[in-house]
């Protein structure tokens, strides 16, 4: 069902944890949907110096947050912002269609964390895409 890459990141999730003095925190998801992702970033000179996260969700949600943490670490905020859910899914060698929503959570959590940082630094907020915009075919009844 899942690629080897997904299973690898699921079994050994990278960068798990919390950053107690984080510069930005993004939490997305809904326990009603069975998933919550909380991303912590540490920013220095516009670069994501460190990233940690906690994830409650299915195997692909855990793998998505793990690979996303690797993708944004060391990137500028602009670069990190551009990492889409598709990039997350591709980095995992693909996700089943019904699980694309887990990769969306990763994108959203990163965006929220970056905007949280920008807000606290009185920077203009960047525009986030909505969940429904990103995956149209997927229906959420919650």
């Amino acid at each position: 069902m899942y690629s080897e890459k997904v299973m690898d990141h699921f079994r050994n999730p990278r960068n798990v944890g919390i950053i107690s003095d984080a510069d930005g925190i993004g939490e997305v998801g809904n326990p009603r949907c069975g998933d919550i992702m909380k991303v912590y970033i540490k920013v220095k000179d516009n670069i994501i110096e460190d990233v940690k996260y906690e994830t409650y969700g299915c195997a692909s949600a855990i793998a998505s947050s793990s690979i996303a943490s690797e993708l944004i670490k060391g990137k500028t905020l602009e670069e990190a912002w551009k990492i889409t859910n598709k990039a997350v899914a591709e980095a995992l060698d693909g996700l089943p269609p019904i699980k694309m929503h887990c990769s969306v959570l990763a994108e959203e959590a990163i965006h929220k964390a970056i905007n949280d940082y920008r807000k606290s630094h009185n920077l203009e907020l960047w525009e986030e895409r909505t969940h429904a915009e990103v995956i149209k075919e997927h229906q959420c009844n919650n």
Partner: protein
Amino acid sequence: MKKSIYMDYAATTFVRQEVLDEILPYFKDYYSNPSSLYSFAEDSKKAIKLARQRVASVINSKEEEIYFTSGGSESDNWAIKGIAFANKDKGNHIITSQIEHHAVLNAAKFLEKNGFTVTYLPVDSDGFIKLEDLRNAITDKTILVSIMFANNEIGTIEPISEIGKLCKEKGVYFHTDAVQVVGHLPIDVESMNIDLLSMSGHKFYGPKGVGVLYVKKGVKIENLIHGGAQEKGKRASTENVPGIVGLGKAIEIAQSEQNFEIKRLTALRDKLIDGILNKVSNTKLNGPTGNLRLPNNVNISFLGVEGETLLFDLDDAGVFVSTGSACASGSLEPSHVLLSIGLSHELAHGSIRLTLGLNTTEEDVDYVLEILPKIIEKRRAMSPIWSE
């Protein structure tokens, strides 16, 4: 060596050797179409008759009341749509429960789109329907009550005899989906006043793709599969002789060891339940305890962890379990059964089902009790909704 412990017997079972032995000759030797008239067809004709007798004797029906189908889903669909279409002049109201298998629920939903109304009875926190609710729901338009014998996710055994009695009193047909029960617990359609009953071969060590609908003599039912004159004209299609033979043999063996297995599995089940609840905090057993729970069913929710995660972690450790029912896998929705017994979405998402069977040993249970707490601990540690 990597462990390989199957704990998903409610999803499907292997075909046991004695059953396979009995099936094999019907593929290449006695392969004739049982409806044929020549002597060569005698063997396959007799084989089907024997299977019918075996099934009838286990549920205490008459041989002519047993109709072979392609599985539990077809039996459920046939019962519900067949009664509806044949009795629509009498009424257009059907009663079932919120925790039925999707084969029943989705057949009912189809009927709702085609002129019928359906009442979905609620259940209490252990999954039991209330007789009073049923009594109140029956109107003079009601033609069918369909309540499952036991639930496939949480193991709740419904008050079938009482439902049967009530339906008889009210003159309403009573169908029960006994897919999780046949072969595992005693059933008596006569004393329980059951008019229609579904079963599926692959849930009791028979083959997949074959099932039974018991239809009490005199019950007015329309075909689901129209066509040839097989099964007394009620279910068309060339008989699946090997499948039918296998189902017959499997039900006979299951019956012979039933008492022994009920005791053995109940003990293993309770050891597993108690062990998990004791070793892991913030858990909840779904479904009742004791005799009103299927002997082989364990269903537990873990706060702060998602069920699919546990499934894959257990898979890595060589233990095969499920979250909810196999056929709902791949859906993002939490189980309708768990929501119906009042679980929050969160707890419903965090549940796994472990179902035991013939090859399950005490060592298997011990092994699960050893690894599961560690898995939970690891996943809770990374969960944003968990804090000790």
